[in-house]
């Protein structure tokens, strides 16, 4: 030990120039090798992201050499394709017109949807070297990669037809993979002629045609938020939640404020399951007053409120005020999904997916794989787990509540003998006239959840009457398509 200290002291204070030079040399070699590794990782990981940046002019260079590849639905229907005329000018067509407006998006005046997400592959050509060089020689553009999405034409059409003239949003996802099967936002536009409509759309500040309501529309969650209030109650009480009782007289009074049940209903004596199934506002306001505010904040945070959603899609942040900013009335309102809370349909769908999937959230995605012109797969997107939003027990608890909504509650229209569904309705009130947005979020089959559906129809009325029937059609179609 003493020997060592002595040696250390000598090296520290009286190193020879030779030793110092060797140390410097080693230091710079190590420094450079760390830099090489950094550079290598940078090249390996970042190409796609860099090329998609709007400030990267290489996109234009590629566009002058290649024309955009095709975009397909999951069953192989062409959703977008390009034609090149004799002057090598490229025209983009969307055979389904407005149907995939927001999901597939557009690529002429800026980009959105799949056109944006997989721009890198669409503008890079997978043609062979010989082919590329021969095409270049005679001035012909090369075809870009073809992108296969997870989108399903039939589900998309059902949602689109049902929404009809209503504004709103519908998203259908696979719970175990995160694949988005349908994504519809109304009002919509025809991406083939977007450049002609562009000036008009941009000029009109009230127009929200270009907004994808599924990912960017912020709505009051209404009664669908009771899932979260109930979940917090379960977190605090565990199995004792079964002891909860409330006698609903049609209103709940606290601190001089009052919350009324929807449409003046009086629910009588309820346990938590019945309160949830029948969407009793009074009992949930009562629950809201009993829960721990800090725990509630933590729960909302872990359910991705006030955060960027884990997905490549362009999304808005859902927001909820921190409970410290809320007085009793605000807290009562928040507990039943009114107040200042705002949520995107995609976010609500993600919470539903996690609840149905034992608490684990799969990242939502729209792209399945990319092929080159020769049909070889260039990139396959794997199912990606985001992580756990709630425990297995909590997931089972929520599933129980959501099943009761179909069995005995507001989503009774979903009852049928082919499959068992579960979910939560909502009628989110807005304005002063008593108008409401119709919400439904749910999944099926209840026993082994596969598919999640989230619907909002603006100003339509109650979720049970207006959103649930669409959910039924979507589930029906999903299970019919599955049958051989």
């Amino acid at each position, binding site marked *: 030990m003493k020997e060592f200290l002595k040696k250390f002291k000598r*090296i*520290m*204070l*009286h*190193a*020879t*120039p*030779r*030793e*110092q*030079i*060797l140390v*410097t*040399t080693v230091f*710079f*070699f190590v*420094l*450079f090798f760390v*830099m*090489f590794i*950094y*550079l*290598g990782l*940078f*090249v390996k990981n*970042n*190409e796609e992201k*860099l*090329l998609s*940046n709007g*400030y*990267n*002019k*290489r996109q234009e*260079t590629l566009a002058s050499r290649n024309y955009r590849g095709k975009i397909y639905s999951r069953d192989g229907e062409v959703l977008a394709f390009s034609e090149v005329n004799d002057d090598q000018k490229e025209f983009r067509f969307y055979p389904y017109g407005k149907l995939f407006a927001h999901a597939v998006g557009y690529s002429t005046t800026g980009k959105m949807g799949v056109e944006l997400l997989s721009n890198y592959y669409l503008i890079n050509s997978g043609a062979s*070297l010989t082919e*590329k*060089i*021969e095409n*270049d*020689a005679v001035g012909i553009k090369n075809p870009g990669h073809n992108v296969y999405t997870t989108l399903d034409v039939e589900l998309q059409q059902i949602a689109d037809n049902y929404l009809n003239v209503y504004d709103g949003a519908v998203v259908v996802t696979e719970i175990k993979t995160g694949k988005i099967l349908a994504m519809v936002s109304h009002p919509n536009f025809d991406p083939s002629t977007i450049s002609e409509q562009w000036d008009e759309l941009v000029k009109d500040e009230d127009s929200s045609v270009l907004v994808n309501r599924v990912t960017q529309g912020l709505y009051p969650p209404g009664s669908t938020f009771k899932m979260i209030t109930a979940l917090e109650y379960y977190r605090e009480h565990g199995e004792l939640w079964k002891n909860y009782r409330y006698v609903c007289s049609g209103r709940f009074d606290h601190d001089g404020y009052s919350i009324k049940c929807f449409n003046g209903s009086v629910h009588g004596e309820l346990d938590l399951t019945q309160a949830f199934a029948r969407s009793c506002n009074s009992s949930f306001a009562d629950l809201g007053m009993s829960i721990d505010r800090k725990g509630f904040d933590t729960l909302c945070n872990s359910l991705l409120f006030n955060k960027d959603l884990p997905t490549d899609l362009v999304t808005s942040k859902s927001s909820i005020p921190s409970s410290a900013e809320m007085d009793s009335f605000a807290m009562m309102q928040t507990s039943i999904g009114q107040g200042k809370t705002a949520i995107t349909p995609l976010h609500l769908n993600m919470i539903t997916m996690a609840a149905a999937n034992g608490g684990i959230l799969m990242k939502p995605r729209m792209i399945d794989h990319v092929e080159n012109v020769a049909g070889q797969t260039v990139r396959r997107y794997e199912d990606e787990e985001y992580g756990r939003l709630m425990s297995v027990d909590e997931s089972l608890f929520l599933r129980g509540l959501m099943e009761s909504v179909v069995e005995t509650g507001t989503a009774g229209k979903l009852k049928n003998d082919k499959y068992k569904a579960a979910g939560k309705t909502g009628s989110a009130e807005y304005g002063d006239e008593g108008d409401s947005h119709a919400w439904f979020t749910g999944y099926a089959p209840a026993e082994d959840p596969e598919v999640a559906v989230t619907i909002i129809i603006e100003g339509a009325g109650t979720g049970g009457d207006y959103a649930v029937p669409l959910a039924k059609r979507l589930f029906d179609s999903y299970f019919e398509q599955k049958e051989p």
Partner: protein
Amino acid sequence: MAIILQQYLIELSRYALFALMAIYTICSFVLFAPVSQKAEHRLYAVQNMLMLLLLFLCFLDLTFATGNVRFLYLFVFLLLFLFVMILLVTLIYEDTNRLLLNNMCLLLGVGLCTISRLSFARAYRQYLIALFSFGLCLVVPLVFRKVRFFKKLTWGYAACGVGILSVVLLLGRIHNGSKITFTVAGLTFQPSEFIKILYIFFLAAVLWEHSDFKWVLISGIIAGIHVVILVLSKDLGSALIYYVAFVLIVVMITGNNLYLMIGTIGGMAASAVAYRLFGHVKVRFLAWKDPWTYIENKGYQIGQSLFAIGSGRWFGTGLTMGNSKDIPFVEQDAIFSAICEEFGVLFAICILLVSLNCFLEMMRIAINVGDRFYKIICYGCGITYIFQIFLTVGGGIKFIPLTGVTLPLISAGGTSCLVTMLMFFIVQGINIRLKAVERKKAGIS
């Protein structure tokens, strides 16, 4: 048909260029292994052949791609220049360090090729400057053999350095937000590059004799004045190089690692103060931390630099196929990214390995030199050379904040080219002295 041929040529030469460069790099490191003198000379010849092939292929690509024969002319003149240089130097000085010479020629060649692809006019100017520098450099080893009073000009170096830098600070015109250039008779100089040599000589002249605390302090004050003037001139890269050179030289010659600790802490404290005091330091730091948020203005250069590297990937886009011209000041500040884009990252790493090889050779010579004065100079040249490369490359790939210094021997920039060549030949001169001393000793014993 011709177009098809040209395209195949450019596509395939991406791999060929990397292969040539990789073999060259391996040769330069093999030379550090104990090999017979015969094998050594054969390896030098192999290196020269590889260099020839590599440059030929580059300029062939450029000629075909642009359809302009001027690239072939440039190639012929470049080749002539490099081989005359190698021939002349080795003939005049039989103890020339061939490895350093070969590496220098290769780096100059690749640099000129890259610059000519970005701007032919600049390449032409650079070529003339290299020619002129070579003329100057040729006598450097001779001067080192004959002149004995270098050790005695201590205060001359200091006065000259501080004086010129101050004049530049006061009179120099604004150049990219930094007052670092100086125009005499139509030629623009960057004195901070040039003063670097005087500065190293000053430190050597003080510290070879006295390395006690008093003299370290005195030299520290003079070095500090240099650094402060550079910071005020907004030439942050040079300021950093000067500072690091001082600390490392002091630690090397005194053998006291406490100076290293003080130097590191002092450097960090100074950076923190500079960050608060100077807007341009803060801008550089923010642009490094998150170039994408500031891509419209302060992050633009680094952003474009990263785009170039990302588009080049491992084997590059092929010469003339990239968009490196989008990077502001690409020929000076970001030439490394331009190389990454068109030659590929693997090729660019080989370039850095060759630079490290030069550094290693300089350090080897520094160890062997007995005379403390020349030891310091050799060591100083080596560390300023490699540290400058680290700053410019690290800045361009977002490893560290961008400081805007040139890549020695490769970037466009007359002063930088001249000064780096001078430093290489100063090391050559020291090496030749060393060999002469060794021979004398061998003769006596």
